[in-house]
């Protein structure tokens, strides 16, 4: 079943357009940087962007930081929101269920295909970021292959495994949005409502993060630790936000997926 879902997801032009657009924004930023050589001052703008002029390879990480707040979650919400509601709207959901495909099985297959999409998106953004950064901005001399945020040097091996860790962390961060969109997707026959609902959840969370009065809530907001992957490039790694972020996402993902499962397995399919 998972194979069928992957064929369905990656056989659609829309999926590839989304991934293309996801890569377009960081590429555009990179071109502008290479052209103007105006980088934001350290501490301003997206993370890492101030450092990329010195070392183009760093742009792989900067690209992640660029798409993370909005572009990536939108793409995830579109794909996950469409997962069940899209089939319901097209009428194909009932034919899948009488095939029969178990409802739990279908939900798991949908979830895994969404995870595959997120992972592919994150990996391509990193890879494309690395390539355009490398060619447009140029590498730093080998002696300072990579400077951590803390100022010390990181060996290429260290950078490599930290980047893999960052990819996994960002992917996992996106699963909260994916689980929310998937849950909403089981409650409605309109993929648009599911996607917009998940985005509202996200924007609400981001907004509350900027309101001082909401401080007691902030440690529990789903987007609170999204940028904690930057901490992976400190020396030594600052684990506190990373682990807290993982734990928080795990709770959101667990609760929302359980809700999605409970709703989907007991509901009448009248689409």
């Amino acid at each position, binding site marked *: 079943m998972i194979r069928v879902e992957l064929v369905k997801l990656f*056989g659609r032009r829309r999926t590839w357009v989304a991934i293309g657009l996801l890569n377009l924004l960081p590429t555009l930023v990179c071109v502008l940087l290479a052209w103007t050589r105006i980088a934001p001052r350290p501490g301003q703008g997206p993370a890492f962007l101030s450092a990329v002029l010195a070392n183009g390879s760093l742009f792989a990480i900067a690209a992640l930081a660029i798409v993370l707040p909005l572009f990536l979650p939108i793409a995830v919400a579109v794909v996950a929101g469409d997962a069940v509601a899209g089939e319901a709207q*097209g009428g194909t959901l009932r034919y899948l269920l*009488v095939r*029969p495909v178990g409802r739990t099985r279908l939900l798991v297959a949908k979830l895994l295909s969404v995870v595959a999409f997120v992972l592919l998106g994150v990996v391509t953004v990193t890879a494309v970021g690395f390539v355009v950064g490398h060619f447009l901005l140029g590498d730093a001399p080998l002696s300072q292959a990579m400077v951590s945020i803390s100022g010390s040097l990181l060996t290429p091996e260290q950078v490599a495994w930290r980047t893999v860790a960052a990819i996994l962390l960002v992917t996992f961060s996106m699963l909260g949005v994916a689980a929310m969109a998937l849950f909403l997707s089981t409650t409605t026959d309109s993929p648009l409502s599911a996607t917009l609902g998940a985005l509202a959840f996200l924007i609400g969370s981001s907004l509350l993060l900027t309101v001082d009065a909401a401080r007691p809530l902030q440690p529990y907001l789903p987007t609170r630790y999204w940028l904690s992957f930057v901490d992976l490039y400190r020396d030594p790694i600052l684990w506190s936000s990373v682990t807290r972020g993982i734990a928080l996402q795990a709770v959101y993902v667990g609760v929302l997926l359980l809700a999605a499962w409970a709703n989907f397995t007991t509901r*009448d399919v009248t689409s």
Partner: protein
Amino acid sequence: MIRTEGLTKRFGSVLAVDDVALDVAPGDIYGFLGANGSGKTTTVRCLLGLVLPTDGRIELMGRPMPKSGREVLPKVGSLVEGPAAYGHLSGHANLTLIDASGGRPGGPLGGGRRDRADRARRALEVVGLGDVGRRPVRAYSLGMRQRLGLAAALLRQPELLVLDEPTNGLDPQGIREVRTLLQELHAAGTTVFLSSHLLAEVDQLCTRIGLLDRGRLVLQESLATLRAPTGRTVVVTPDAARAAQVLGPAVDHLNGQRLLVRAADPAVVNARLVAEGVPVAELGPERRSLEEVIEERTSARRPGEVAR
């Protein structure tokens, strides 16, 4: 094949299906009749485990539904409320995807990944879509989509076909083709459960009917019984007045040139009329048409009442 007891489904305050006891035997072509909004589709959805009943029991092939869906549904082909397919894929690709979804049943229904393309091609040929090729379903006409839906239902050579309005959107020739197809499948041993609001379709095809009226099953009978002679004889004569005189109190009803006579044997009536020199234009046992039966059993919709 299909048996329900006290099947009831309530959507909020609306009672869509009310205490329905269906009984479909193996080998039937069962016509499931009812006006729009009488609860046919909800019943079909309950049978297939899409809608969970509020109350009552459902058995498909002797197994409880929706609990045994995994064992039973692979042997059931269905068309529920119109066909559906992925518009950007061809008919063939749609069928292979459907085939690949879900488990691989064993036995005669089985067959693995390798003959998948072959099965899809055969199903398409059966419904007359063999030549459509790689065109995406998006470009199909309504009739072609309907045929594709039928092909999907036939994909695994089911023992039971549950079809909801299968001739919707087909032209007269298409309807005839579907009828022939269903008769062939029935002859080959498939039980057919056909939900429809087209009396003519059911009249020509079915062996048994069930009639749903506002969620209640008001009639379940074999078609032969329904259409059996009523014990009255119809006489058409240019001289109705004299015929009525001759037959006396046996005449139930006189309308223009047409008389309804309480007498089971038309030959006796004929002999009496001819002996008295009454010209007879037509004469025969009274049989009720399906339409009359339905009309009699269905309470008329009140003016202004909305079909749900």
